[in-house]
């Protein structure tokens, strides 16, 4: 019996997403499902989904990253500067991805070689990086791509949705392949489940940690590029709330924040979609901001409580 309950629980997040969609479709009088709304949802889900998908590897291996927002805005700002200097999107793309991977490598090496509570490190790193972004921006408050060497091709709303779809699907399939059909996926699950067993099974702990952070960084780099192209004005606080948004998304996606074998790639996608539908629905209902935030908090706490029904320890968790 226990095992069947386990499989049923796997579908909870999807069920949760369905409930949110139905609820807000009714609450917004069907506006949620209008073509404009669906395209807008896609444009909004892209950034959170890209970062959340990558974070499944980072959180899955038992690490915790609160510096997602700062890394994203730093990569986007530098990508913007590269585009202004060279006028070529390709260079901007390479800079976004390259810098983000560099930051991911830095965090990965720190996680493997320095014995320290990583989540405090990432919180401090977050504030350090956003200060560094401000420092780079100097006295310009944001990077404006309109003063690039060659003007950027301008994309319409629906063209932008197509680009987002292509980027999201390609990165999602890459993550799927990495997670299910390459060693890194299983190694992340085992490492997150029990680090001692992982080491005794010959899993190269350091390599897996660095690999997880690099895959995460790839997601952040892609998200930075997509936002850069779409918004064209990048400030230091471009995605400052990404850290908490991704955490809420992963929880709504059914991913245990302590990582381990129950981590699933779908948690990134389902979670990001759920948080986007939740935010969009609440805004479209024109509710008071405080009510929106309380509603989001209650949904978050309920989902976290339901997802963690299984384990009960005698000692209080730390």
């Amino acid at each position, binding site marked *: 019996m226990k095992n069947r309950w386990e499989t049923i629980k796997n579908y909870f997040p999807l069920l949760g997403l369905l409930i949110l969609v139905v609820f807000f479709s009714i609450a917004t009088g069907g506006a949620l499902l209008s073509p404009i*709304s669906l395209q807008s949802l896609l444009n909004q889900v892209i950034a959170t989904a890209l970062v959340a998908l990558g974070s499944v590897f980072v959180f899955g291996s038992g690490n915790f990253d609160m510096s997602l927002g700062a890394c994203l805005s730093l990569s986007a700002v530098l990508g913007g500067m590269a585009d202004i200097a060279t006028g070529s999107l390709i260079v901007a793309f390479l800079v976004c991805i390259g810098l983000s991977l560099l930051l991911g490598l830095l965090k990965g090496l720190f996680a493997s070689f320095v014995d320290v509570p990583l989540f405090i490190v990432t919180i401090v790193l977050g504030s350090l990086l956003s200060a560094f972004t401000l420092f780079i921006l100097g006295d310009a408050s944001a990077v404006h791509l*309109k003063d690039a060497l060659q003007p950027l091709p301008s994309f319409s709303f629906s063209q932008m949705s197509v680009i987002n779809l292509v980027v999201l699907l390609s990165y999602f399939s890459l993550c799927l392949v990495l997670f299910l059909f390459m060693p890194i996926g299983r190694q992340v699950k085992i490492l997150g489940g029990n680090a001692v067993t992982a080491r005794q099974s010959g899993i190269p702990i350091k390599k897996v940690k660095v690999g997880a952070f690099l895959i995460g960084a790839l997601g952040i780099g892609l998200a930075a590029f997509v936002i850069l192209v779409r*918004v064209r004005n990048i400030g230091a606080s471009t995605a400052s709330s990404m850290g908490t948004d991704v955490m809420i998304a992963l929880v709504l996606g059914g991913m245990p924040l302590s990582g381990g074998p129950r981590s699933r790639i779908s948690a990134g996608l389902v979670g990001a979609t759920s948080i986007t539908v939740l935010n969009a629905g609440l*805004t479209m209902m024109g509710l*008071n901001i405080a*009510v929106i935030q309380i509603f989001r908090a*209650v949904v978050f706490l309920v989902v976290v409580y339901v997802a963690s029904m299984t384990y009960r320890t005698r000692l209080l968790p730390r």
Partner: protein
Amino acid sequence: MKKTLSLLLLISLLLGFALGTAQAEPALSEDGRFPVETVKIGFVNYDTSAEQVLAIQSYFEYLQTAFNFEVIWSEALNSAAAEFAFIEQCAAAGCKAIIGYYNEGKSESVKLAADLGMYYFGGAVNADIYEPEKNNPFYVGGYISGAEQDENYLAGYAVGKALVDAGSKKVIVMSGGKDFGVEFFVKRYNGIMDALNEGGAEVVYEVPGWPGTEAFAAHQTAALQTEADGLAGTLTCMMWLQPMQNAGKMGQIKVAGIETVSEGLVGLMQGGIYVGAFSEIPDMFGLSIPMILNAVTGYGEQQRNPDGSAGRVKVLNWVITNPEDMAYFAKLLSGEGDERVFSIEDLKTVMGAYNPDFTLDDMSTLYSAVTADEIRARHAQ
């Protein structure tokens, strides 16, 4: 105690998933509210608790007694990406227009709103928002400084001049976001410096940044150590009053800043602490309602320039140097009684539905008549 009890009940009610109680009131099309069908408008906001935003919210509630529109207020949007998401959500929610009170995405935001079939109000002051999109029919335009120079520069100049007229010679300048390159702070700062130089006053200390950080507290204390007799702010100087009191300098330093009109300021001006305040008039943002309603109800053409470009309504702001004006303006904004800076009747004079042959210039004259006497004269008719 009763008040808090009812509040706690409300909170527990909300926690219990009871939704929709706090929504805007239902739209009644038949009872003389214009237009017949409710017009939904999205308001792009960055600081949900800013005094000016709260003043605008109460002004809109006043307008809603006569005009049939609903506002979706955004959360604190701190980036262009978040702004785009909000604009798209408003389109999905069936909004007809966006008020760009705050604009991070520059002309891209206007283009996005237009792409989604929504009118866009705002940003006319800012060339790199206005120029690229001025001929876009969905861009209704916005307000622009009545005087020749830019309104932010004017604000800074008014603050500096108020101090010079009050005899300040050694002035502390609070530069706010100038070091971070935030444009309107830079312009206000330049305005202050020009006024001070013309008046022969010298800057004894420049304090960057915002309250809340240890660095700001350190700068603030160092500034209060100087023999300054004046404080010029590129934003509100309210957060200096308490430290001046703590440093025993209350009264020695004359203050002028960019403030939102309030009861408190009346007392401070009477006490000779505040000698000048430049204040944007919250009701000025009410201009968005007639312009949007005109566009929605087919009178959009009349409020554009002859060459078809988006209309730019000249507006003036308040330069307040005496407590009487401050008291009068405070009463106007407080909403007691029906007297407002721009009352419903004033707005009707520039709305096609009520006055079909209104022109863009009529709007400019209405929104430039903002001195206490001009407002009294208008309401006397």
